[in-house]
């Protein structure tokens, strides 16, 4: 019983970063722009959080340091998001290639900057002030649920709140209606007076910034520093979560949690003697294989935004 409580707790820990990145990917893709750059946005976020938190520590900001790093992540990542938006929305570049460029450029430039800032070192200095799990008074003392749900990192609560907010915006506000229209049938949105490419541009920026929070989360909860393998594949798992969750905010949230379980199980199972012979990679493999399986069984009624990947050109003949 206690193990299950820890498992749930662990799930949230692993899933938090995925939730942020998946939500970021979701916003972009619902607007009709493929987001293969999630990995790059996460790298950028992880890097910024690592560097800014370090300098905040140096400036004696103490416990506020990780918060400063966390909030700095989306601001710096705006640069990469702008790149994706300009190339794919403004200049109609192939959105897949544009996303791949974001990944390549984010990886190379952040490592370049780390070496530049820290005298050729391959990673940022170890952070002393990172997020610690916040126990919610009273609730965290409850048996089982206390451990499972009420002593998590503060960013986890933010991620959950963000999922709900994005759901509300997407399905209950004019902005959401327009965003979905732009991703489904931009021609309709345009004739209805919605500025299609402007909305897509903003969606790419917002998506990149939110995804960067996922990268920051990894640095500031699990890793305590930024190295070249801080982010290795989480961005793609997040993309899988968007697809697995059928481009729906709650679906993507659920998928991120589900993929988090796989990771948490891996950590918990180490304790069990018999499981030591199972290669760890089975658990890494799981999200991708499951997503494929889901696609195989549901593809006939595809739920991806109809105009996903198609640049919108109003003057096209």
């Amino acid at each position, binding site marked *: 019983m206690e193990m299950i409580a820890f498992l749930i707790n662990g799930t949230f820990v692993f899933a938090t970063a995925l939730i942020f990145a998946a939500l970021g990917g979701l916003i972009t893709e619902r607007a009709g722009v493929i987001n293969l750059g999630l990995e790059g946005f996460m790298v950028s976020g992880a890097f910024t959080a690592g560097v800014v938190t370090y300098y905040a520590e140096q400036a004696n900001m103490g416990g506020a340091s990780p918060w400063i790093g966390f909030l700095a992540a989306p601001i710096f990542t705006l640069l990469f998001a702008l790149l994706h938006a300009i190339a794919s929305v403004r200049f109609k570049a192939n959105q897949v290639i544009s996303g791949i460029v974001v990944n390549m450029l984010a990886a190379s430039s952040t490592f370049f900057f780390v070496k530049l800032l820290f005298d050729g070192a391959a990673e940022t200095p170890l952070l002393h002030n990172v997020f610690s799990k916040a126990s919610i008074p009273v609730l965290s003392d409850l048996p089982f649920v206390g451990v499972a749900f009420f002593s998590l990192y503060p960013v986890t609560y933010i991620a959950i709140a963000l999922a709900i907010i994005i759901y509300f915006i997407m399905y*209950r506000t004019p902005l959401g209606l327009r965003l979905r229209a732009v991703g*489904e049938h931009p021609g309709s949105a345009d004739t209805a007076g919605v500025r299609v490419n402007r909305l897509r541009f903003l969606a790419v920026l917002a998506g990149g910034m939110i995804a960067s929070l996922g990268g920051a989360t990894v640095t500031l909860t699990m890793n305590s520093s930024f190295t070249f393998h801080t982010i290795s594949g989480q961005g793609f798992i997040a993309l899988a979560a968007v697809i697995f969750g059928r481009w729906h905010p709650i679906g993507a949230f659920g998928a991120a949690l589900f993929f988090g379980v796989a990771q948490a199980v891996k950590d918990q199972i180490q304790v069990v003697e018999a499981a030591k012979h199972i290669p760890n990679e089975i658990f890494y493999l799981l999200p991708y294989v499951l997503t494929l399986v889901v696609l195989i069984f549901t593809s006939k009624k595809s739920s991806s935004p109809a105009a996903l990947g198609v640049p919108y050109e109003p003057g096209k003949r």
Partner: protein
Amino acid sequence: MTAQHDIVLELKGLTKRFPGIVANDSIDLQLRKGEILALLGENGAGKSTLMNMVFGLYQPDEGEIWINGQPVSMDTPSKAIELGIGMVHQHFKLVPPFTVTENIVLGMETKKGLAIDLKSSAQRIQELSDRYNLNIKPHAVVDTISVGMQQRVEIMKILYRGADILIFDEPTAVLTPQEITELLAILKGLAAEGKSIIIITHKLKEIMEIADRCTVIRRGKVIDTLEVAAASPEALAERMVGRNVSLHVDKEAAQPGERLLEVKDLHVKDSSGQNMLRGVSFDIRAGEIVGIAGVDGNGQSELIEALTGMMKIESGSIRLEGKEMANLSPRTVSELGVGHIPQDRHKHGLVLDFTVSENSVLKSYYNNPMSKLGILQESNIRKEAERFIESYDIRTPGTEVLARSLSGGNQQKIIIAREIEANPKFLIAAQPTRGLDVGAISFVHKQLIAERDAGKAVLLVSFELDEILDVADRILVIFNGQIVGETTPSATNEQKLGLMMAGKLGGESSNG
């Protein structure tokens, strides 16, 4: 109307160029308050381009747009909407998974606090629907409603936005005859309420029925503006095509031979599982042209695709000279002697990014003499293309230019040359003259008749009744996936055919 008209919309010298062509050349046009103005012209004359500029989708290269006596710059559709202009596009601009209400309010939603207020909007839509007799269900999902209702949703969209100038781009193209009647009544009602309407069309009958005036456009220029009450359909047609129209085709009486094609009880479902053909049976003899008349979407595409092997059939049989060819591959069907001039030459008939040479051998590239041991024989391929260019008078700078760069008529000639020169026993021609100018149309018709006279079986599928009446020897009427009647050009006319196409009247016999 009195002599003093309020001009609600005026276009002054509008010009729009696309790479290679001038789509609109210094167009002047006036729309009066409360009138229905028809904009008449052939395909490609520049009507849609003009209206897209009025609606802010394209920017004019030169010229001005005036609304209610004021010059305006129409840079986006939202600007147009703001100025009271609404447009119903040929291809509906609706978001399929959204409800009717969501589609209508998109872009001008009402809010309740932070959230969208769909309830009150739905109410208003219901009221407007009742007032203009549009019969719209606000809560239905657009995906699931009929084409006719989708169009009424489009009309509601612009009424909801308070438009006073309504533009309709080929509004009847996708409608059944009943739906057309309903639509025309709605348009008259709207004009009576003081709305000013522009309707883009090339159907003379509709213009005569509802329009007050008619502006004719040809090759991007305004030719004339006529009072419809004082004009004859012939005069309109002449202005539209630019010469005396005699689309009548000279041909001898058919000399049908033995039965070449026999189709029995054909059933076909589309990809979503809907029954598109429900027991179609007919046959064609050598040396006759059988025309299929019907409104678009009644199973014509499926019939053609089934006959050519491009689509699987559920049941039934298709025999060519007694040989069963149902559910064979397109290649086998073609090798058995079926030629096919497809309905959409850009989508099917040509690979637009291939050269004229490459397109000339689209169906023969894999065989000797076009390829040997899998290797393309370039000189043979080029010779074939040169032969086509020569004998079909294809106007092209050479054999190695991309098909994309040729005019529609010359593109069609490549297809016709390829299909006819393959010497098929049975030739299918689907909408073979769509979008062509008059000269090219008569060329195509002559070719079809020559094939008939050479003893081939020809199937002509067309949405243009004139074409069917002029070219076919025997007419089958298709409605809702079934052949509902059979007749001959001499025994019928447009009115009778129209009724049959609407499923209202049977032919002399159901099988020939």
